[in-house]
C-alpha cells in the first residue's frame, strides 16, 4: 500500500511539473504586452521599456519560469497587474463564493444523479430507465449557460420570482436573500452535473448487477433490498468515489461559466476577467491553483481506491 501511494505521488509531481510548464507557456505566448496594457496606449516607448524591465519581462523565459516556480512553491503567486493586490489574496477573496456554488451544486447533483442512476440500472430497459437516460442525455447535451438562460427566462422573466444575477453575502442581505440569489445558479449547475453522475452510476451499477455473486444472491432467494444494500453498495464504494473525482472537472468548468453569467464574484469570474485584461500573474496563479486542486482530488481518489478495492493496488501499475 505504501508503495502504491508513493507511485501515485511521483506521478502527481511529474504531472505538476508539466502542468506548470504548460500554464507558463500559454500565458507567455499570449499576444499583447502587459506593460503597454498597464500604462495605456499613450505611454512613451521609454516608459513601457522601463516598466518591462521592472516587471522582469525582459529576462529570458527560463529565468522568468524558475523565478515563478520558486515563488509559487512558497505560496507567493505574484502581484496582480491591475488589482493592486497579490494574486494570493485575490484568490482567497474569491474562493468563498466559488466553493459555496460548487458545494451546493454537487450536493444537488448527487442527490438527483445517484438515486436515478441506481433505479435506472435496476430497471434496465424499462420506462424508468429510458426516461431518466433521456433526461441525462439532454443534460449532457446542454452547455450550462444554456440551461441557466432557460431558468432565467422561466423564473426571472415569465414568473418573476427569483433574482437572476448577482451575489449577496449573508452579512449584507440576510440568509434568505443569500439563498434566493444562489438558487438559479446552483440548480442549473446541479442539474447539468447530475446528468453525468447519473450516467456513470447507471453504467457501473448495471455492471455490478450482472455479476455472478448477485445472481447467486438472487438464486438464494434473498430479498431485493438485502441484495441492494448488502451486496451492491459494498461493491459500489469505488464507483461513488470515482464519481466525486470525475465530476470535479466539469464542476469547475461549469462554475467558471456560470459565475461570469450570473455575475457571482468567484474564481471563475476572476479568471475570465483576467484573461480579457491579460493579467498574467492572476491567470497563471488561478489556473495553477484550480488545476492543483483537481490533481490533489484525483490523487485522493486514487489513494482511496487502493483502500476500498485491494485489487487496484496490484493491477493499476500500467496506468
Amino acid at each position, binding site marked *: 500500500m505504501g508503495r502504491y501511494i508513493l507511485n501515485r505521488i511521483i506521478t502527481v509531481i511529474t504531472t505538476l511539473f508539466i502542468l506548470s510548464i504548460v500554464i507558463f507557456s500559454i500565458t507567455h505566448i499570449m499576444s499583447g504586452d502587459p506593460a503597454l496594457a498597464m500604462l495605456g496606449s499613450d505611454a512613451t516607448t521609454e516608459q513601457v521599456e522601463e516598466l518591462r524591465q521592472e516587471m522582469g519581462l525582459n529576462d529570458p523565459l527560463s529565468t522568468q519560469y524558475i523565478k515563478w516556480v520558486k515563488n509559487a512553491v512558497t505560496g507567493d503567486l505574484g502581484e496582480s497587474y491591475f488589482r493592486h493586490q497579490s494574486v494570493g489574496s485575490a484568490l482567497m477573496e474569491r474562493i468563498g463564493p466559488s466553493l459555496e456554488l460548487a458545494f451546493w451544486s454537487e450536493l444537488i447533483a448527487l442527490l438527483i444523479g445517484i438515486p436515478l442512476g441506481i433505479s435506472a440500472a435496476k430497471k434496465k430497459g424499462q420506462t424508468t430507465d429510458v426516461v431518466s437516460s433521456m433526461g441525462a442525455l439532454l443534460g*449532457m447535451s*446542454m452547455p450550462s449557460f444554456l440551461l441557466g438562460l432557460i431558468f432565467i427566462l422561466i423564473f426571472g422573466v415569465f414568473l418573476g420570482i427569483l433574482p437572476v444575477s448577482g451575489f449577496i453575502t449573508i452579512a449584507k442581505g440576510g440568509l434568505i436573500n443569500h439563498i434566493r440569489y444562489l438558487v438559479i445558479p446552483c440548480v442549473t449547475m446541479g442539474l447539468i452535473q447530475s446528468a453525468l453522475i447519473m450516467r456513470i452510476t447507471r453504467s457501473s451499477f448495471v455492471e455490478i448487477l450482472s455479476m455472478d455473486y448477485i445472481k447467486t444472491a438472487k438464486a438464494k432467494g434473498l430479498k431485493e433490498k438485502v441484495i441492494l444494500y448488502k451486496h451492491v453498495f459494498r461493491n459500489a464504494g469505488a464507483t461513488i468515489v470515482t464519481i466525486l473525482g470525475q465530476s470535479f472537472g466539469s464542476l469547475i468548468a461549469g462554475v467558471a461559466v456560470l459565475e461570469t453569467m450570473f455575475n457571482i464574484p468567484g474564481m471563475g469570474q476572476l479568471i475570465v476577467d483576467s484573461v480579457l485584461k491579460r493579467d498574467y500573474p492572476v491567470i497563471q496563479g488561478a489556473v495553477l491553483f484550480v488545476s492543483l486542486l483537481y490533481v490533489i482530488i484525483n490523487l485522493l481518489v486514487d489513494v482511496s481506491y487502493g483502500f476500498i478495492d485491494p485489487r487496484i493496488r496490484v493491477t493499476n501499475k500500467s496506468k
Partner: protein
Amino acid sequence: MVNVSEKRESSFEVAKAAIWENRKIKIKSFFKNKMALIGLILTLLMVIAAILAPIVFPEGPIEMDTANAFKAPSGQHLFGTDEFGRDILNRTMYGIRISLLIGAATAAITFVLGMILGLLAGYFSFLDNIIMRICEGMMAIPSILMGIALMSALGCNSKNVVIALSIVYTPVVARVARASTLTVKEMTYIEAIKSQGAGWVRVLFGHIAPNTLSPVIVQATNIFATAIILEAALSFLGAGIPAPLPSMGNILSEAKQYVFNSWWLTLFPSIVMIVLVMGINILGDGIRDVIDPSSN
C-alpha cells in the same frame, strides 16, 4: 506450388467475405437500433439546415435592418429579429453551420493527432512516459480554463477556436488510443508479423492501428459533441468566435442581454442548440453500441 497459392487465395477470399458479412451485420444492427436512427435523423436535419443556410438566406447572417429590430416571431421572421433587425432563423442556421464545421474539424484533427501520439506511446515504452505525462499535465487543466487561456493567447477567430479545441482534446484521444494499442500489441498476430521481419512502421500503422480504431472513433464522436458545447461556452464568454459572426454561443450571449424583453432571442436558438448536440450524442451512443459493444 500452384495448389498452395490457390489455397491462400481462397482463404483470403473467405476472410474478405467474412469481413464484409461482419460489416453488413453491424450496419444492420445500427439501423435496427431506434435511438441511433433518431440520432442520425436529427444530425442529418442539422446538416441539411447548415447546407441550406446560404441558399435560403443568400444575403448572409450579418446584414442589419434596424427598421425591423426586436420584431417578435411572425410569418415573415419565424424566429423573430434581434437588436439590429437581423433574422434569428437566418443567424441560427448559419450558427449551426459554424458549430458543425468547428465540431467536425476538431474531431478530425484530434482523431489524427491523438491516434499518432497514442500509437507511438503505446508501442514504444520510452515514448510512453514522455507523451503520457505531457497529456496528463494538460488534462489536469479543466478544459474551459485551458480553452479560455489558449484563445486569449492565440486571438479570437474561427481557425484559432479549432486549434485551441484540438489542443484541449488531443490528449483525451491519445489516452484512449494508447490504452487500445497496449492491448493490441500483445496479440499473437502482431508477433507473427514481426517474426516475418516487418518494420515498426508497417507493424504499427498497418496492423496495430486498424484494430485500435473502434474506441478511438467512439471517442472522436464524443469530442464532436463536446467541442460544440465548449465552443459555445467560449463564444458566450467572449473568448471564441468574434461578434458579428453567428456561432451558437454568440447568438445566445447576445440574447442574454435582452432576455427580459425579447424571449424569442433565447428560446429558439436554445432549442436548436440542444437538438444539435443531442442528435450527435445519440448518434455517438449508437455508433458505440454497434462498433464497440463491450463498452456498454
